[in-house]
């Protein structure tokens, strides 16, 4: 019997994870579904549609499935690709960040030379980066921001490129055909049953899902969470965050490496520790400021920001002052006493943080421009 539909990945197959957004946007939902349906028509590709990855808790069924997969992964989410990669890493699904060509157009620098110089730059702290000390498995995880494109064909092209890169693009398993389904003859289609004994089954026991011909789904409805996510390719284990946070979110593992030990102690909406991190290694994937949510520095927003109109105070703070204010707001909300600004703040290092501020607003995408103009039209200005 095929009763076990957990994932038994091999390096011969690609798993496409579609992390559903929290937003009710019909366009976003439709894109998720179209990509999932397309991906399972590709050779050697399975698809798992999961709830918003960031919200999943440790006991999540989804994560249990994902941890059992050892092959390459394409991760699709409505988060910045770097944030999504490290959310998955935090959940114990680890690998090397695979190079993605389908990028969020809002975040692509026009200046090619600039890109190269960044890549060529020698990382003087390479020896201190946690990910270089505690190395991750060699399989690749290709994280793609779903805001990159609303066109399914763009994703198909990217998936095919990745299949080719992984050298698993040979069509071992074809596009769904009734004949193939009723008479499974190849071995890769057996990957989902894990026992390799599909031939002995009564055909009526075999579902399309078990054959990997339709996307697998996890019926799970997590509640919303808020916690920091550490990019260990940047983190140098300097401990600024554990000193700064007064809510006990951070801890260290047995190797004395920093980790987000009590994520649910984190104060919802508060991004203060991310502002004091000297390496910009701490992300809050849901924060509205792109630089805090894991975007490259200077990335723009994607929509009109109405915060000023809806009452956001005018503030001209440096990141250290902002962090101290945010922490105090949370202390007061928690019924505790506010603290003097210098507590746990290394002002010299923090001052290097000038790039992370609320002023990273101006958008610069074709899409954003289009919608802004729609907006202007709609408002009849």
């Amino acid at each position, binding site marked *: 019997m095929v009763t076990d539909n957990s994932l038994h990945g091999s390096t011969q197959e690609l798993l496409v994870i579609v992390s559903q957004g*929290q*937003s*009710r*946007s019909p366009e*976003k939902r439709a894109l998720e579904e179209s990509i999932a349906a397309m991906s399972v028509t590709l050779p050697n590709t399975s698809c798992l549609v999961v709830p918003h990855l960031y919200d999943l808790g440790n006991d999540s069924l989804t994560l249990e499935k994902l941890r059992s997969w050892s092959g390459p992964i394409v991760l699709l989410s409505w988060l910045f690709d770097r944030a999504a990669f490290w959310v998955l890493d935090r959940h114990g699904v680890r690998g090397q960040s695979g190079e993605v060509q389908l990028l969020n157009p809002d975040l692509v620098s026009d200046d090619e030379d600039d890109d190269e110089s960044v890549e060529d730059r020698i990382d003087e702290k390479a020896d201190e980066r946690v990910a270089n000390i505690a190395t991750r498995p060699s399989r690749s995880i290709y994280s793609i921001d779903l805001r990159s494109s609303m066109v399914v064909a763009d994703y198909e092209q990217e998936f095919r490129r990745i299949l080719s890169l992984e050298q698993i693009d040979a069509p071992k398993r074809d596009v769904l055909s009734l004949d193939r389904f009723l008479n499974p003859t190849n071995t890769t289609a057996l990957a989902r049953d894990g026992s390799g004994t599909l031939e002995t089954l009564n055909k009526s026991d075999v579902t399309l899902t078990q054959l990997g011909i339709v996307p697998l789904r996890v019926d799970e409805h997590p509640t*919303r969470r*808020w916690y920091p996510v550490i990019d260990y390719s940047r983190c140098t284990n300097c401990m600024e965050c554990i000193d700064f946070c007064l809510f006990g979110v951070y801890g260290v593992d047995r190797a004395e490496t920093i980790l987000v030990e009590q994520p649910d102690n984190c104060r*919802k*909406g*508060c991004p203060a520790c991310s502002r004091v991190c000297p390496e910009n290694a701490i992300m809050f994937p*849901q924060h*509205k400021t792109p630089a805090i949510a894991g975007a490259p520095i200077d990335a*723009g*927003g994607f*929509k*009109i*920001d*109405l*915060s*000023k*109109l*809806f*009452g*956001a*105070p005018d503030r001209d703070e440096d990141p250290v002052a902002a962090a101290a204010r945010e922490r105090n*707001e949370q202390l*007061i*909300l928690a019924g505790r006493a506010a603290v003097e600004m210098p507590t746990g703040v290394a002002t010299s290092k923090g001052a290097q943080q000038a790039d992370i501020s609320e002023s990273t*607003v*101006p*958008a*610069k995408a*074709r899409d*954003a*421009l289009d*919608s*802004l*103009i*729609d*907006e*202007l039209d*709609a*408002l*009849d*200005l």
Partner: protein
Amino acid sequence: MSESLTFMMGEFAAEFPCDRLYARNHMWAMPLAEKVFRFGFSAYAVRLLQDVYFIDFDVAVDTNLSSRQEFGSIESKKAESGLYAPISGHVVRVNDQLLEDPSCINIDKYGEGWLMEMQGEPDELLSPTAYLEHLVKAWDVAQRTIKGQANSVESDEE
């Protein structure tokens, strides 16, 4: 429906019922009890937002907020914003129904689409008439803000 006032946003007629007060940050405030108010987005705010796809609250009941303190975020088809406390006070209830289906804000902004309830002093709240006067000025600022963001996009593109 009780009496209401109308403000023209371009061609769009935004309606403001007179059975409640209003905050400068475009929320209505329905008095529920002594110094307890239910807040929601006014027609003006909802028109700027258009279809709401996502809302999140950073604040739990039984906590205190100061005026204009951020307590959540909202995302719509066209825009995004933080949510800012309309007055200083104590949070009594938040409308958790919106987490699952924020479209209530569009469908029934003055009823089921309410955001939260707070206990606090009403000093900062405006009468419907005073709110409409505030809108005349606010509408100028809104147009400039939206145009300003659009212009910065255009100049970046060049």
